[in-house]
């Protein structure tokens, strides 16, 4: 599965929403609260086996699903 699909799977599991679109906002459209936003970053690290840099560790800088996908792409190649 590509990065986009895997990120959407992680977000879907956290918020329970099945149809995740790239433009959706994490806090408003998908109702991720602060604890879930943090869990999202931890899951990203676990499932992609990456360690995010300190400047990328503030979950509140992530606004949309697309911004999470872009974040992961900074760390790994497209196909995994």
């Amino acid at each position, binding site marked *: 599965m590509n990065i986009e699909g895997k990120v959407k799977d992680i977000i879907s*599991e*956290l*918020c*329970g*929403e099945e149809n995740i679109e790239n433009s959706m906002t994490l806090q408003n459209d998908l*109702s991720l*609260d*602060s*604890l*879930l936003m*943090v*869990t999202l*970053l*931890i899951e990203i*690290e*676990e499932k992609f086996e990456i*360690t995010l840099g*300190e400047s990328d*560790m*503030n*979950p509140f800088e992530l606004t949309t699903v697309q911004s999470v996908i872009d974040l992961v792409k900074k760390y790994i190649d497209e196909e995994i």
Partner: protein
Amino acid sequence: MRLWNYIKSKMERNLLQTVSENDTSLTFDEIIIFAEKFSENLKGIKCCAIMCQSEMATSMVLLSCFAAGVTALPISQRYGKSHCKKILKTVSPDVVITDQDGEFQIFHIKDSEYKEPKTHIALIMCTSGTTGVPKGAMLTETNIITNVEDIVEYFNIDSSDTILISRPLYHCAVLTGEFLTSLIKGTKIRFYSGEFNPIIVYMMVKDYQITAFCSTPTVLSLMARCKRYKDTDFLKHICISGECMGIETAKKIADAFPDAYIYHVYGLTEACPRVSYLPPAKFNKYPDYVGVPLHSVSLKIVSETGQPVRVNEIGTLWVKGDNVMFGYYNDAKKTSDVLQDGWLCTGDLALINDEGLLKIKGRRDDLIIKAGMNIYPQEIENTLKEDFRVSEVLARGYTDDRCGMQIELNIVGDFSSVDEVKELCRNLLPSYQIPTRINLLDKLSKNGSGKIKRRQDYVGV
């Protein structure tokens, strides 16, 4: 002002030690000077509500109240406006102090109805009020000094340590067990007033070489999942409290922080709050026990009929000691419900094992009595959490018109259907614990301190 003199005399041993938050840092010496000067603004006031956004600001006003001999009422805005209003209505203080834009402001309340009882009350700590109406536990200077002295005896931090305080001082465990204990021990204090974020906590632990940290099992287990904590072996003292902790969660925390002394402690606001602690050396063997009573605390566990139970038998836990509150503010009925002949009914079900260690089984209010069987929701929850697919779970009782008390399970996790959850229950739980109603959910509601709301209405997806 005995409490202030006690705190001040201990702080004077480490006048150059610091209390910090963000870029603000003050020495103990500067804090003492501030508290005594600011206390002059509180002359003639009986009760002062503290509604500061910064925890460091809260701590400074709190000490000023102690210096002035004024009853302090800390309020956390993290619980929302409506809860703050309820507290102000329940206690009706003379003034409210805020820290808008970094400046302290004192608002006098015209129709204050606060009446101090015959004894001087140093602090009123409001419980979260899961049932809706907050109760104000009145704590005397003796209550606080007694409990802090007992905590200082076992919590092995000193002036070479730095503690990170990341929860509001509105919680008694934070105010007494972290803040006052650190002042007495001369420990360097760093406050963090933002939303909980294990990654920010990690950065602070690393940047400020934090050696002591206290939190709940939920928060610590999330921190345990951050693999980067592996390079923070200087974090030596971890104190866990606030929720019943299962063995699996305890193991995850112990594995993530192998070099730390882990203190599993128990208490309640009404006991100022600490009642017992498990010595770190026993954590690996008895992770779900909360240890032995503090020096000044006596315990008894009694059956439904009021008789003391035997070793390993479950009953209701009562505690006694100079740490036990004076009563609930303006509520003689609720006070007499829990305080009897100097004993405080904790409302918790507990047992003491043959080594004299205390174990909390759950809230008496949460106990599910089904067909004469006592079922502890936390037991069901901890068993189900052993399955990797389960992320959050809440078990509780409900009354069925035909069958009487039954078990409802609210669960969040990697399940495609309720049938999968049913199968998991059948595999892991004894038959009497298998729930009759299962709600598969996106998430469970939590209160301001991250605890799952037990009395919330949940509807399955």
